[in-house]
């Protein structure tokens, strides 16, 4: 029943000037309040969005980014947060950042210890899937990937260096990670827990590395009675994280340092 015109006729006997004046001031008070509320709401939304700066500037999360990721700052800008890279990964190595990562919300990363990128896709499907070039299309081979560099961060824990072997599963029977064992199935990755080992000296990091010549376990002593060896990483390392995932000690002796380059060490 809101027919125009809006203003009701003045009630009989009312002072002609008082009523519209009071109504007008009431309306302007209402409008002023709405504007104040709007300013508060705008501040909250912008403030909440700008909170996203913190985790980024403070470097709370040092994420291993998927193959082909451009420089971190550009990566956060270029990524459209759609997760198409997540969808094409055959081992589901790629996860998306949550709200606590600030501007990294919805941005992909690889938690290598849980599930490394094992190049089961045989190329770089995630790169091909990326619609914005946040994963740069300049690379097309797994050998060209540089996510980071494997580093023996806990040499004292390394089974090879201790002269120890590995019997049974690498990561226990509860571990869900997948890996493609080419000698078992050329195309299909299988759970790591379904592939037990029986080795006198652990060399899983080198044995399972999907890149040729990226890592070897070298003897520490020329004396053949001394089994001990040590993993050595070469410049072919792509930082895919398979060594970190497969390392049987917990926490792992070898880890990928994200975005570390061969030239930097």
């Amino acid at each position, binding site marked *: 029943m809101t027919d125009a015109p809006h203003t009701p006729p003045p009630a009989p006997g009312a002072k002609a000037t008082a009523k519209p004046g009071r109504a007008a001031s009431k309306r302007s008070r209402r409008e002023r309040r709405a504007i104040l509320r709007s300013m508060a*709401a705008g501040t909250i939304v912008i403030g909440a969005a700008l909170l996203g700066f913190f985790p980024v500037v403070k470097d709370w999360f040092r994420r291993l980014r998927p193959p082909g990721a451009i420089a971190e700052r550009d990566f956060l800008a270029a990524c459209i947060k759609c997760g198409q890279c997540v969808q094409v990964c055959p081992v589901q190595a790629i996860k998306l950042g949550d709200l606590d990562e600030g*501007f990294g919300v919805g941005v992909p990363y690889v938690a290598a210890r849980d599930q490394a990128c094992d190049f089961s896709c045989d190329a770089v499907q995630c790169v091909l899937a990326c*619609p914005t070039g946040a994963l740069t299309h300049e690379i097309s081979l797994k050998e060209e990937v540089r996510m980071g560099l494997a580093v023996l961060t806990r040499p004292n824990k390394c089974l090879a260096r201790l002269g120890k072997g590995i019997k049974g599963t690498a990561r226990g029977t509860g571990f869900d990670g997948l890996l493609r064992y080419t000698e078992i199935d050329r195309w299909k990755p299988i759970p790591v827990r379904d592939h037990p080992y029986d080795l006198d000296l652990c060399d899983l990091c080198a044995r399972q590395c999907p890149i040729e010549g990226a890592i070897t376990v070298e003897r520490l002593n020329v004396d053949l009675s001394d089994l001990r060896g040590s993993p050595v990483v070469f410049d072919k390392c792509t930082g895919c994280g398979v060594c970190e995932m497969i390392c049987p000690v917990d926490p792992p002796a070898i880890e990928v340092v994200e975005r570390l380059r061969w030239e930097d060490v």
Partner: protein
Amino acid sequence: MTMLRSIATMLGAGPAPRPEPDEYAPEAAAMYEVKSSLEGKKERVAKLKAERDEKRSHKWRNWRWFSIVVVNLLFVASFQLDIQLVEGALTASRVVGFHFADLNSSLQVMLAYKVILINLVIGTVTVFLLWWTLGGRTFCSWVCPYHLLAEFAETLHLRLAKAKLVTDLPLHRGTRTVLYVVFVVLALVTGYTVFEAVSPVGILSRALIYGPGLAMIWVGGLLLIEVFITRRAWCRYICPIGLTYGIVGVTSPVHVKYNIENCLHEGDCRKVCMVPHVLEVTKKGYSKTVDVGLGPDCTRCGLCIDVCPTESLKYEVRGLNKLL
């Protein structure tokens, strides 16, 4: 002029005022004349409303909810069941292999990254053409998952308001325009897609497809605000995505057309509408012409079409009559 005015209204200006007596088209003036001379309007309104309520139709609302659910399920199923029809999320996707990019997400990326990739341009142009054809903010009410949740929150809000437990505290509609500019400047200056950190559309779409996380707390908070404080706060006053698609829809062929002839001006359409300023023309004497299209801020949701007791509001594809 009318178009400029409707754009200004979308940006936050007040709706067009009641026209001067000499501004009416002769047919429209004649119809208003007839309406004023008719007796027993109250009874007629009551009768028509009773008839409507008896066989109350939620046709368009139901189709729309179906659309939102199906589109978002397509995203979910494409990943979870690996049927690969619509890969990605609402921010960017591949629809049977073709690049699609949400206009606002794409704008944020282009402004922040400052490098424009051909795939993104293709996706953006495709989506622009799609939503231009379909009506612009049609995206909001026919696809956006947050819109659906917000509709439930709105229903709750209206129930609580009816019981006098809450009062709607409206914001100024210009808020969205200011925020739009702020987020454009922030993306450009900081080099980050700042808005994406709080976009409930991206958050919700990803939560549906890849599983929910902490970010859903933000979405939940927004919904609580809409239930208890401000009716449809996000979609109505804040969302830059809505404004982007609103601009796309300015010249869109699909719109809701209002015809004054049988209208009783009782205002039910404005009560159900999320953007009632576009329905200001349905007030008696506010439309200069017999037929008038609603402004670009209209989400083409069809709630007004369902509620109108006189069928004065209808979907129309502009120019289709001439074509056929």
